[in-house]
């Protein structure tokens, strides 16, 4: 099977796309040694700044650098406006879905989503039923993962409504590019993104009915893989970075322990999964959470961003219904397409999947980080058979999708510059209005032919430009 990939920089006839021309000229004129030297400088700077992540399962907790590629991913402004519209529409619909699900459940009554699909879902939280949230917002911060197929059209690969990460890399990548190659930014108009922490703080503040709420960032601690990002965001926003043990609950109010005594907390931007938030309500073994937090939350004395129970909406088995949600709640046609998805919980879909395992991508509905997935065309016979057994044993835990021809972008590799597959995660903020900064995080699969871009699987990142066309 011959597959064609959409190259972000070059057309099929080898000509450079218009929005990349200024960059291509610069690349051709800049001496190779200079580029190599700048790349080494970038590595050193990232290392010095400790912009690292930790791999789970690595006993020593080694901090690693996420490889950074100096060739940017560039998007023409006109195209971006479409992507932006699509992301806003999608997140609006998802928030409306969550509000509906935890109240009247009109969408179930209308027969659009089967009740067992959502109510039996692990991400569904009974504790949220009937609870009113300020502005009806559940996912204040969302990450929408996008890829492009062979013809260049955008598809949503998945929604991230729990604790999407990566925004710090988006910001640091831009800072690095501006430091290493200022001339590029003088040569063309690239939309700025540095105000993201500002927008985030505004979003968090408007998630509370109070005028000037006390906002904190809750981290699982410095051994968490995304700790750098938690510290980064709290510093940029100028708010406290707290761990569970810094907080306590008294009379259904949340306080933090400070050098001047207890101080009340109004908004918690939590980077901790639902299960770990409150040992009294969820996982009793959690040492990371705050006993009594759920009760305080339910009595309306504190805002959690994102809300508890958003996982039901970004679950991969709910994903196939999102286009219908958009039509149902907004009465609009979806701007961004969904990837066709087979739900292995349905017998007909399952038999199709089992018959075509070699060509499909199979994912766990609850998985993330690129763990627990099968990329059919790249897998060995043994891996395929292993997945076949797993699918038969627990079909409802999996979905399958056609293997997309993820678009490629020129990337520095050992042998020079070569095309590598990329995706895009814009970050969508929902507060008084729904907004995003232009671009997002571009992840790149550095291994030749690989379609897995997750940093835990050896992916790297690129700066993402939205350029005036």
């Amino acid at each position, binding site marked *: 099977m011959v597959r064609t990939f959409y190259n972000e920089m070059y057309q099929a006839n080898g000509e450079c796309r218009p929005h990349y021309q200024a960059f291509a000229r610069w690349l051709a004129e800049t001496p190779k040694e200079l580029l190599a030297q700048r790349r080494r400088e970038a590595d050193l700077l990232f290392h010095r*700044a*400790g912009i690292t992540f930790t791999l789970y399962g690595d006993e020593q907790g080694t901090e690693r650098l996420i490889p950074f590629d100096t060739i940017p991913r560039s998007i023409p402004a006109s195209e971006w406006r479409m992507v932006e519209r699509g992301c806003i529409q999608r997140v609006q619909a998802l928030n409306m879905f969550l509000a509906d699900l935890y109240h009247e459940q009109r969408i179930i009554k209308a027969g659009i989503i089967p009740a067992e699909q959502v109510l039996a879902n692990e991400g569904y939280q009974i504790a949220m039923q009937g609870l009113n949230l300020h502005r009806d917002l559940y996912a204040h911060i969302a990450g929408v993962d996008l890829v492009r197929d062979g013809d260049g059209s955008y598809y949503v690969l998945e929604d991230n409504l729990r604790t999407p990460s990566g925004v710090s890399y988006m910001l640091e990548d831009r800072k690095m590019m501006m430091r290493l190659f200022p001339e590029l930014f003088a040569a063309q108009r690239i939309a700025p993104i540095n105000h993201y922490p500002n927008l985030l703080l505004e979003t968090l503040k408007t998630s509370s009915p109070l005028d000037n709420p006390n906002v904190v960032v809750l981290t699982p601690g410095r051994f968490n893989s995304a700790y750098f990002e938690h*510290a980064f965001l709290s510093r940029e926003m100028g708010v406290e*970075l707290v761990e569970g043990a810094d907080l306590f609950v008294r009379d259904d109010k949340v306080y933090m*322990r400070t*050098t001047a005594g207890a101080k009340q907390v109004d908004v918690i931007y939590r980077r901790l999964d639902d299960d770990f938030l409150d040992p009294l309500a969820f996982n009793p073994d959690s040492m990371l959470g705050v006993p009594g937090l759920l009760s305080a939350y339910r009595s309306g004395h504190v805002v959690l961003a994102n809300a508890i129970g958003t996982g039901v909406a970004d679950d991969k088995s709910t994903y196939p219904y999102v286009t219908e949600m958009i039509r149902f709640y907004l009465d609009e046609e979806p701007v961004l397409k969904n990837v066709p998805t087979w739900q292995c919980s349905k017998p007909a879909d399952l038999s199709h999947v089992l018959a075509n395992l070699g060509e499909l991508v199979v994912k766990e509905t609850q998985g993330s980080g690129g763990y627990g997935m099968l990329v059919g065309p790249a897998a060995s016979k043994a891996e395929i058979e292993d997945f076949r057994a797993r699918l038969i044993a627990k079909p409802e835990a999996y979905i399958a999708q056609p293997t997309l021809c993820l678009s490629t972008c020129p990337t520095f590799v050992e042998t020079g510059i070569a095309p590598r597959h990329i995706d895009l995660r814009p970050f969508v903020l929902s507060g008084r209005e729904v907004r995003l900064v232009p671009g997002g995080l571009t992840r790149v699969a550095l291994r030749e032919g690989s379609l897995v871009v997750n940093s835990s699987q050896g992916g790297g990142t690129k700066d993402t430009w939205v350029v005036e066309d």
Partner: protein
Amino acid sequence: MLSRTASDLYWMSRYLERAENLARMLDVSYSLSLMPQDGRGDGLEELAMPLLITGTLEEYMARHGQLHAERILHFFALDAENPASIYNCLGAARSNAHAVRGRITAEMWENINASWLEIRGIAEQGLGRYGISRFCEWVKERSHLFRGATFGTIMRGDPYRFIRLGTFIERADNTLRLLDARYEMLGEDIDEVDGRPARSYYQWSALLRALSSFEAFAEIYRGSPGTRKVSELLLLRPEVPRSLRACMDELSLMLASLPGENGRPAQRLAAELEARLRYTSINEVLDEGLHTWLTDFILLVRKLGHAIHSSYLEVA
């Protein structure tokens, strides 16, 4: 600010100051061990002194059995197994900084992180190849750089105050201990005959140099150093940045400017100690017996450390 954050900042600067002080200690002992020893052995006794001061001699002996120059130096400076080594102090400082990297400036974090990455490189190549004096210089330089970055970039708020508290508690303790150890070694000034003046001169000079106070001494006293003058300089002179008095002035100032009521016990003790130093003369100290006086004060500084802990770092 968060008590945990305050605690991490306080310990970050304590560990960094400790690393610097250990380097100073090592520097003075190493250079003295290279001097002719007047038939007093091979300088090993001198080299073992940093272990004695830091209370790690026993652990060293348990591990190595006998005094051996190279092993002492490695154990003290770079041994990852010795929790009190300079290597581990820098590691602990960096780890505390990591926990609060959102509350210190990017310059501070990058500085301390770079020090940590670098000392790991030094540990790989070994102290012998890197050079001992060069290593001590390097540690001091990294500490100076960090202090400079802190001074030049951080807001003058509570985080700054807790960083200063950590530095000066550690420094006060260190000055007391170094003076005590050198005094133990030299004893009372004896009428200087037969080469002894040279020995005492070098010992006191080395101590002054280790505490970066040699120039101050020369300028204030214009004479050769002895117990009385050196003690006065290092204990009671407010204008010498590593003197006990200077440390206590700073501690009292920082504590007085912290908000809240819960810090009263620490504030009162610091003010009391500051006042005592202000109105004590060196004669009173020597009349009491220098060693006794120093030992008492080491306990008082420790008490102040405990008061800071219970007032701010582990409340609510």
